[in-house]
């Protein structure tokens, strides 16, 4: 902890950089994935293509993606934009399928009722589909938030500053405390953002009951097979 005491300003600076890279990447992923998920839900045939491309993109490793993007977009390798684009591509690829599932999870009877009440198409999207899709959507957003915060660190390898710098610098100078601070800082940031998301989710879905879950049936055979797909 003495290392942290003497380097507090540096760690804080890197933490701020980390947030500045991770949060825009997550936000872009969510927006684009909702649009793609909506397309996949509305036009299943186009959806198969879109989701196929997404899963293909997801299988491109992150570090190579970081090197390919500057060439494609003509931006400098060491620019933060490179990392934000790469992580947004990843996040979107991972989230698009979940977003389609989220829209599918909306009870069709609720939509029909809303239509019968005279909701317009846009009204139906903003006031019925999107809010009801929040729970499933949120589970996906939580996954990409943790993975994005963790992936920001590899930017340090090409010279984009973040908490990842503590990992590379600590390795090069053989300071284990620095690496530990970097690892813990990254994990704490991920947990903090995750907590924020859970709170935001609870605020966005006030109709959901917040009582403890009922005790599960004891025999494995009584549990429906729906679980485990998380």
């Amino acid at each position, binding site marked *: 902890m003495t290392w942290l005491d003497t380097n507090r300003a540096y760690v804080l600076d890197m933490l701020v950089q980390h947030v500045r890279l991770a949060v825009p990447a997550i936000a872009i992923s969510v927006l684009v994935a909702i649009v793609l998920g909506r397309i996949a839900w509305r036009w299943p045939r186009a959806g198969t293509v879109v989701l196929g491309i997404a899963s293909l993109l997801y299988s491109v490793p992150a570090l190579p993606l970081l*090197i390919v993007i500057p060439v494609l977009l003509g931006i400098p390798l060491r620019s933060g934009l490179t990392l934000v684009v790469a992580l947004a591509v990843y996040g979107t690829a991972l989230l698009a399928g979940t977003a389609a599932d989220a829209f599918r999870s909306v009870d069709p009877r609720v939509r029909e009722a809303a239509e019968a009440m005279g909701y317009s198409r846009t009204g139906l999207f903003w006031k019925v589909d999107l809010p009801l899709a929040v729970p499933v959507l949120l589970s996906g957003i939580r996954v990409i938030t*943790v993975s994005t915060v963790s992936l920001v660190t590899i930017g340090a390898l090409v010279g984009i500053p973040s908490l990842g710098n503590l*990992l*590379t610098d600590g390795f090069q100078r*053989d300071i284990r405390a620095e690496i530990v601070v970097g*690892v813990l800082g*990254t994990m704490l940031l991920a947990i903090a953002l995750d907590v924020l998301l859970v709170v935001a989710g609870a605020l966005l879905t006030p109709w959901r009951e917040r009582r403890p879950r009922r005790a599960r049936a004891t025999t494995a*055979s009584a549990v429906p097979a729906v679980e485990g797909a998380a």
Partner: protein
Amino acid sequence: MNLFGEALRWIGDGSHWGGPGGIDTRIVQHLWVTFAAVGIAAVLAIPLGVLIGHTGRGRLVVVALAGAVRAVPTLGLLTLLGLAIGIGVEAPLLALVALAFPSLLAGAYAGIEAADPGAVDAARAVGMSEWQVVTRVEVPLGASVLIGGIRAATLQVVATATLAAYISDTGLGRYLFSGLKSRDYAQMLAGALLVAALALLLDLLMAALQRASSPTQGKVPS
């Protein structure tokens, strides 16, 4: 776009093939470390996952643990192990085993849990032992989910094996890092393209394997 041409020429250059630092050697190293890591992790994680799926016990602990492991930046794990163990293939191998573990475990228990409870009860009713229930009913029925876990783990590991080159002289990641150091973008991009191609190829292979392992493959689903 010109850079892509240069990178492809770099890959096509005969002098970059053969020998201890050649592209073929690097590909073999990359695949070797990938399969070794996934293999070791599978031997540990799959029996544990099957046990959890079969008994339904310890699921919450494992899910929480797997989530925590996912939040650990792999680069941090790599550098810490690199300092602790020294420069060699052991440190990255260990980090990659840790990386592969959660996906394999989740695939195994989700696969077992996904087996139709009716089929499991029927197997017991006809007098199968618990061991037979696991090996003849639950594992075959859950095979495609289980292989899905292996696929996810393989994809993560083959991608992250690129980072292994940061702490040891292993795999295709070497081209990225030496290209970065010498500002040789063609070499760096060549390395990136090679890793991406390898990852895509492996993923396609695993996807085919996953499809082939589905119990309803080629039959009319009931």
